[in-house]
């Protein structure tokens, strides 16, 4: 082989080697992207910059956010990544479990804390997102049972979470166990709109045979619950008034301050109910 030919041969081999190297590197990058299937929900940096473009986050906070993400990714290594329903709900529940830990043990997770409430807001947003995923999963798999998840999160100390938990509970049977969780959760609620929305579910439970429990809860809430939420309940109580609980609500009205909005609304509902019964 001539020197010139040897040189050409080596040139071709070198180029080929470089091409192979490039292909291997490209494949490696693609693989790394696909393996990074964990949603970057714990990375609040990007969210904050989009939500509040005027804010400039210092790099140390970015580091903290990435650290939190790395912690989650590491802990989820063993979680199934199957896209089947069975795999999905395990992943979601795992995430919820970790969020619960983040919530109760401040040192277990780190979030960007731009103000005293931002950590709470962020955890709530992620819990809601996960619960909504269960709602979607339940719609696609009617036989799936997420009632225990709904019950658990109805007990959370946050009305935003309770609302999604209520939606999830609404996809399940009207059982005593579910009603008990609902009542305990709503007892701690401060939200008029949430209570108004829950009245529809409570009516369903009432019609399922739990009138005494539902009426007892509502009467007590009206009597001694938060003022604003109590007004909302009184405003919307009419569809739940019936002959079997008329006296309970009448007593509840008497216990309220005379002239108060809640009392006026409750008495108006009772009067309306009596007129409907009497034919006008």
């Amino acid at each position, binding site marked *: 082989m001539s020197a010139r030919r040897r040189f050409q041969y080596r040139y071709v081999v070198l180029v080929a080697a*470089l091409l192979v190297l*490039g292909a291997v590197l490209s494949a490696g990058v693609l693989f790394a992207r696909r393996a990074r299937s964990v949603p970057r929900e714990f990375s609040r940096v990007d*969210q904050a910059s989009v939500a509040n473009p005027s804010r400039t986050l210092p790099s140390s906070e970015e580091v903290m956010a990435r650290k939190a993400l790395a912690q989650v990714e590491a802990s989820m290594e063993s979680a199934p990544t199957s896209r089947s329903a069975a795999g999905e709900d395990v992943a979601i529940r795992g995430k919820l479990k970790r969020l619960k830990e983040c919530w109760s043990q401040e040192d277990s997770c780190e979030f960007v804390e731009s103000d005293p*409430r931002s950590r709470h*807001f962020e955890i709530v947003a992620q819990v809601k997102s996960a619960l909504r995923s269960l709602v979607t999963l339940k719609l696609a798999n009617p036989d799936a049972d997420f009632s225990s998840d709904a019950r658990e999160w109805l007990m959370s100390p*946050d009305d935003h979470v309770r609302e999604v938990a209520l939606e999830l509970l609404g996809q399940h049977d009207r059982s005593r166990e579910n009603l008990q969780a609902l009542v305990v959760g709503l007892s*701690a609620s401060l939200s008029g709109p949430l209570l108004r*929305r829950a009245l529809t579910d409570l009516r369903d439970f009432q019609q399922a045979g739990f009138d005494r429990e539902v009426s007892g809860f509502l009467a007590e809430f009206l009597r001694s619950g938060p003022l604003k939420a109590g007004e909302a309940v009184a405003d919307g109580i009419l569809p739940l008034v019936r002959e079997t609980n008329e006296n309970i609500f009448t007593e509840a009205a008497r216990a309220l301050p005379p002239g108060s909005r809640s009392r006026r609304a409750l008495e*108006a509902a009772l009067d309306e109910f009596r007129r409907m019964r*009497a034919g006008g």
Partner: protein
Amino acid sequence: MRIGWILGAVACASVCLAPVSIPASISVSSAATNSTQERRDVADYWQCDNRVGGAWLFGQAPSACDAASFGEDRLALSRYSALILRDDAASESEVSRYIEDLHAVLRDAAAHYIRRRKPRASPIEVVVFRRAIQTLAHQESYWTHYRIASDQRLKLMRGDLGHGHGLMQIDDRFHFVTIESGEAWDLIGNLAYALDIYYTEWENAAKAPCLSRADDYEKRARAAYSAYNGGPMQICRWTNANHRWARNDQGYHQKFLAQAWLRRVENPKKAASFNVGCEMDGGKNCSSSEGASGQNAGGGTHPVGQWIRAKANLDLRPKLSGGKRGVWLAGERAQILDFEIRTDASFTRAYRVRTEDGKIGWIFVGGVVGGVSSQDQWIEAMDGGRDGWIPLRRGRILAPSGIKIRRVPGGQSIGIAEFDSVIQVRDVIVHGETNEIYLEIISAQGMQGYIYAGRTSPEPTVARWVRAEENE
């Protein structure tokens, strides 16, 4: 050399053109449109017009924005005149007067609230709870809610980049529905809602691991504040001097101990300018000041059921207490469901209306000056409209069992107006505080009498009984 460059280019091409790992798409918290509790990624200073600064002094805390974004100025000026500080008249004596008047409101509100929620609360618990609330208002807003700024506009205090609203800094990122409904704009509404939140934590604090005794009320106050400020899971934050937000807890405690407002209150037992407990309970006619009677209102008040037309674009508020503005456009018609007249000298009138396209809300049409009502420049009475709730001439019975026809309203029954039958309406009678509607009718069978047709307050029920069919 040339070959080297070529080699380099080839090498680079094989690597540099490979897909680069780019960040996953940014996912901002999405908003479910049907949620009642949606936390919103509310922008800083959302709905904040004509923002002004201030000073960290009682009644003047920064920042503040036009209050009109969330409620009617004239309502606030009428109801809370003693609790609005003017920037251009903020002398020492005026500020002291303001502090003394607001002290009375906070004192009464806190005591009323805890006694209502816990009738057996001990006097000590009531006293400390009251102090805790006064401290909370100091910590959150330096006792600032409304102000008239140098631009002569009524302002609402907006702290924390505009997210905190009013006296107790109700956060619009988390209490969006409350903000939008006007609850936080109204001073008493703002205070009542904050009391709901704080009291919940006050009770939770009694069982918190960082309290050894439930009757250690000072620690309960501190714990409740930590949770109010940082969320329910932060109830023991105040015990950690190294916490990121420890300065907030320390600030609260310092203010609790100092009670700086007392230095400006000459008479701590001074009566509030209105019945605070009554207002907190949503009662009516809570003002302790004398007002002229309705007979002197002048100009007449349009009755419930009357159709009116807007002569100019009018703000339509979801509640009497305010709320984010909608618009009732000039030329559109609406049927009156309710009205309210302030019994102070302004006789400010508000009507609750249902527009032809189904919007429901309150409009404010001014008051009476020199015996002349100003409402006529905003609205005019009409003969009727489409799709009203209360039939004025003709209607159809919707009650499944029909409606009893009575000789007089509420009197002896003489017959039945059958379900789905059409009635002729001769008169509309409105009765009582909840606007019970009675229609004088001629039934489909020719019987004359009165039927009950529901009420319009607090929740309209007319649609359960009848439907207007004026145009048939």
